[in-house]
């Protein structure tokens, strides 16, 4: 085990996969000289050469479109789209080509590729460099969607994404790049579609992912002080999401809060709440709740940007509100 940053874990993971499988290669803007916007490719061009770590022009359509072509012809591209906002510049190639080609062509071919996009707010990046777009990808048939929240998950899930025979959208959070955590450098791929029960609890289930995980754990600490026990589930894979873990938790607690940084309206939290409401209705002791960003673009000035953030306080308040009036009384079994 060792401590490394989220960016280093990503770098190590790709390096290991490229060592393992000569068909794996990466393409995108600015990968070589400085190793990507967060150093997540640092040194890889030097090691693997400029063909396998391909510096491209600013041509998002071709970065994505050519990756699909290369994937169906025997290679395994890792596509770097830089900020998720620019993912919209390649939306056609993702939605109309990558996601559907296996199906449209009757299964005669696969498109094993990974689409890396840095999501989320960081320090005044503003409306065109702060978006979270997971809800779109979850809605698109053919895509797997992964959003790791820790260095270890990044390391293991990027491996899994690269080995997956279908296209995977891999969402890395800008605010997490520099965060550190324990990683076993020898660890293999983590399973796709398996959530992590980060903190067991009894009174309510909090489902989250990516950078909001940190806020959720803070909220759980704060709630514990009032004797409220919050179970925290890090979804990690958004599609397919881990129904077993979420349902088991909600069955136990009877209460669901979903927290995410992206816009609440039409966000992925809606899918989770709708699915739980439909499937687990009798088990619910209170209305399921979403805590997420208001339907507004991300503003620049700090006090405004903060208004669009999901805080630990907001999560804790949502949990408190869904519990019976006297939070000091015994909650188990209510």
């Amino acid at each position: 085990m060792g401590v490394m940053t989220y960016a280093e874990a990503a770098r190590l993971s790709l390096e290991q996969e490229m060592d393992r499988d000569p068909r794996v290669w990466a393409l995108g803007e600015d990968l070589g000289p400085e190793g990507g916007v967060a150093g997540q490719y640092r040194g890889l061009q030097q090691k693997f050469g400029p063909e396998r770590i391909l510096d491209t022009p600013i041509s998002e359509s071709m970065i994505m479109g050519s990756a699909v072509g290369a994937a169906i012809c025997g290679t395994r591209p890792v596509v770097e789209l830089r900020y998720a906002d620019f993912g919209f510049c390649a939306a056609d190639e993702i939605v109309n080509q990558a996601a559907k080609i296996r199906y449209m062509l009757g299964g005669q071919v696969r498109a094993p590729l990974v689409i890396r996009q840095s999501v989320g707010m960081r320090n005044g990046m503003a409306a065109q460099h702060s978006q979270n777009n997971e809800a779109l990808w979850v809605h698109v048939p053919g895509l797997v969607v992964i959003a790791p929240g820790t260095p270890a998950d990044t390391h293991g899930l990027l491996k899994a994404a690269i080995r997956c025979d279908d296209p995977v959208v891999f969402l890395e959070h800008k605010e997490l790049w520099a965060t550190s955590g324990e990683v076993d450098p020898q660890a293999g791929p983590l399973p796709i579609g398996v959530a992590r029960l980060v903190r067991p609890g009894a009174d309510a289930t909090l489902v989250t992912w990516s950078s909001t995980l940190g806020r959720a754990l803070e909220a759980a600490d704060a709630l514990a002080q009032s004797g409220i026990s919050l179970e925290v589930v890090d979804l990690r894979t958004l599609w397919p999401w881990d129904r077993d873990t979420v349902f088991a938790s909600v069955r136990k607690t009877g209460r669901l809060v979903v927290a995410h940084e992206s816009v609440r309206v039409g966000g992925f939290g809606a899918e989770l709440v709708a699915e739980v409401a439909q499937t687990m209705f009798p088990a619910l002791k209170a209305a399921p709740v979403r805590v997420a960003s208001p339907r507004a673009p991300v503003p620049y000035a700090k006090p405004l940007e903060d208004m669009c953030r999901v805080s630990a306080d907001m999560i804790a308040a949502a949990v408190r509100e869904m519990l019976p009036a006297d939070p000091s009384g015994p909650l188990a079994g209510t």
Partner: protein
Amino acid sequence: MTDKALPTTARVLEMHRMMCTIREFDEQAGQALDSGLARGSVHQYVGEEAIATGVCANLAATDYIASYHRGHGHSIAKGVDPVGMAKELLGRTGGVCGGKGGSMHIADFSRGMLGANGVVPDGVSLAVGAAQAVKLLRQDRIVAAFFGDGALNRGPLFEALNWARVYQLPLLFICEDNLYSATQRTGAVTAGPGGVARAQSFDIVTETVDGNDVLAVDAAAARLTARIRDGGGPAYLYATTYRWYGHLAFDKGLYRDPAEVKSWRERDCIARIEAWLIGRGVDKAALAATREAVKRAIDAAYEAARAAPFPDKHHAFTDVQDIGGPAWA
């Protein structure tokens, strides 16, 4: 033909047969749509057969092609079985895509045909990637990407030209200029001299040919593909032609001057090569026999398609993705 020896009669007869096959297939594709056997969008290649034929005559079985919405001709020329295509068109079991794709997605990887495409000009983007894969895997293949004149104004096409030249990919661009993009005269919305000048501005080698002259296409494709195989990087073939029918099989093409249609029909690529072959001493009856044989083969293909069962319903939910497919939810 601008240079070197003329092709052998055998080669030209082969190309003639190919052009007849494509035409017959697409005449019947139109009928299949009219009669409700085919559905959705069917774009006929009738009138343009010389281009696919002349280009693919210079490709090996292992080479790749990528096509666009008007893709039947390219598929047949690359060796895709018309039976599997007819079944696909009619949405039946045994269709090259199992009935899931239809006309706009016909593909056959066993023949190096990477697919028609419903988005202009995404097939070119895929071809760029295929060429990149060829290069990465150090394979001995080239890639040919077909597209229409309408594609000349979409941004991804330029990204493709730049990309192919920057990385010196083994890729032949083929612009099939039939003057129209759907109901629009492409020239009216295309600035400057057009596609050739644009390709040249990326330092890509180009040739311009009469796309209704299969010998000219064959010769130009021979030169360009040889250059590409020699590691010369991408090349661009610009071929003028005309589609006889509407944009879609049910479009009557009323936005076109009948005189224009007539004049182009008079330049029929098949009639032209038949005249050439006759001039070379080929018997008229032999050509008629080819046409009849082709007709029987295509009749049989559609007949087999009509007889084939529809795919089983559960196939609607297969091959979406291994993990997280519809069965999962």
